[in-house]
């Protein structure tokens, strides 16, 4: 399925655990890293219109990783897709490496935002969608990935409440739900978005076909959230 090659080597989904194992030193974020793996792979492999050759193309899709904790899956997918050299992975977290325990957009090709502090990606994604709309760029999709506990941040609720009535159709949020919030949202995550006028789908976050269908579901006139449920963090 994959078409990206580096020095004659093509990487597929089966290679991701091996790529992730090259990164050591952030084991406390291990569960956070693996929870996002399938979502990231399906997005970069089948959905996002981005590539290493168009990281500055104004018509590219934007993917904003808000959940910057445990970025190993993210770096592995970016390496597999040729945005960064696989050789960078072994330096993960070291002084001379561009790959930190939280990503920095100014250091890593294809990374749209620096993240780690929770609750920033979705508000920035809202602004990105507004900016593209103001410039008449209808094609690019704007995606952000947040965690279920990250959703506790009030800044996300400001963005959710605004984006629905604003009709930001090109805005997409993926909530990776590994049941890590201490006080889960009453009524569930999707309901919170739906109350604000979003289109919402909840799926098995390990099922690639279900994820793909959810990511590509039509949602005319409304922003779209995909709640991707994975095994609980404590499991």
């Amino acid at each position, binding site marked *: 399925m994959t078409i990206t090659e580096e020095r004659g080597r093509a990487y597929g989904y089966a290679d991701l655990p091996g790529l992730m194992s090259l990164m050591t030193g952030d084991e406390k974020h291990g569960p956070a890293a693996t929870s996002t793996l399938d979502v990231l792979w399906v997005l970069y492999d089948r959905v996002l219109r981005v590539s290493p050759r168009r990281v500055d193309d104004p018509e590219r899709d934007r993917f904003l990783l808000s959940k910057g904790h445990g970025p190993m899956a993210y770096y592995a997918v970016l390496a597999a897709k040729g945005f960064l050299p696989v050789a960078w992975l072994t330096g993960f977290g070291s002084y001379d490496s561009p790959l930190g325990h939280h990503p920095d957009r100014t250091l890593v090709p294809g990374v749209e935002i*620096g993240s780690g502090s929770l609750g920033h990606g979705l508000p920035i994604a809202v602004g*990105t969608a*507004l900016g593209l709309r*103001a410039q008449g760029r209808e094609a690019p999709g704007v995606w952000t990935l947040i965690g279920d506990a990250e959703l506790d941040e009030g800044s996300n609720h400001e963005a959710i409440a605004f984006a629905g009535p604003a009709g930001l159709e090109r805005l997409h949020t993926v909530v990776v739900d590994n049941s890590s919030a201490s006080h889960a949202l009453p009524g569930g995550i999707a309901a919170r978005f739906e109350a604000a006028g979003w289109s919402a789908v909840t799926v098995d976050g390990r099922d690639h076909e279900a994820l793909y269908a959810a990511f590509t579901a039509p949602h005319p006139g409304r922003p779209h959230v995909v709640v991707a449920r994975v095994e609980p963090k404590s499991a």
Partner: protein
Amino acid sequence: MDTMRDRFAPVVSRLLDEDPRVAVVLAEIGKDGFAEAVRRHPDRVVNVGIREQLLVGAAAGLALTGMRPVVHTFASFLVERPFEQVKLDLGHQDAGAVLVSAAASYDWPAGGYTHMAPGDVALLDTLDGWTVHVPGHPDEAETLLRHAVAAGDDKVYVRLSVQANAGGRPVDGESFLPVRQGRSGVVVAVGPLLDAVLDATEGMDLTVLYATTVRPFDGAALRRATGTAGTDVVLVEPYLAGTSAGAVNEALSDVPHRVLGLGVGRRELRRYGRVEEHAAAHGLDARSLRERIGNFLGQGR
């Protein structure tokens, strides 16, 4: 006389017409001034509601797509409440914006401390790369707003106030302006405090520099002034006292010097009333300034 804030919406509305990069982001406050502009540019005048974290985050997103966001609300809600957004969504992302505040340190004394932000410039001083304009007159506010929007993708803060000097001066968005020449000390008067400083130092043998762009701090102008007036320096700032003391020390690091930082006191006043009453309480009226400047320079001789 109209206020600096009265100029804000008309000036920025014209910039919206002139420059397709410009976008305005509001959080309810100030939206009435953009009623006409939002009809002409519905996608470039955005009111996010009473959501100040989103206000700054959305501005950063706009900037990342190549737009030039102008962001406005009261200083306490623009710089203080979403400070981490200012630090990360703009600074860490390497994204620019023009933040334009109103209410200054105590423009609405009857409103109390919840609507005061004397620490805004000091807070921005903890971050890298901000340009800070503190106009002292509506005409200067207009000029500096235009400079701010035209400044590429820079991070710029424009601090508007109802306090103002009687007349505007030719400000250029960079330099301190020598207003008076003397031999026994330098007073740097910032923005709306110039008139009070000129009244206070009438008849004293002092150099007065007028500062409306305080970051970057025009250390070269200060050094030039000390050449004839000596290295006793008094800062008179309309925000937290001593905010620019570090910048003065840096400019004069290789010469013995003394600095007196006058401005708004750190202690919460817990009084309502009028602007003039607060200025006096902080020792920023002409009479208090004359006494404090005179004492400091008298001790130096």
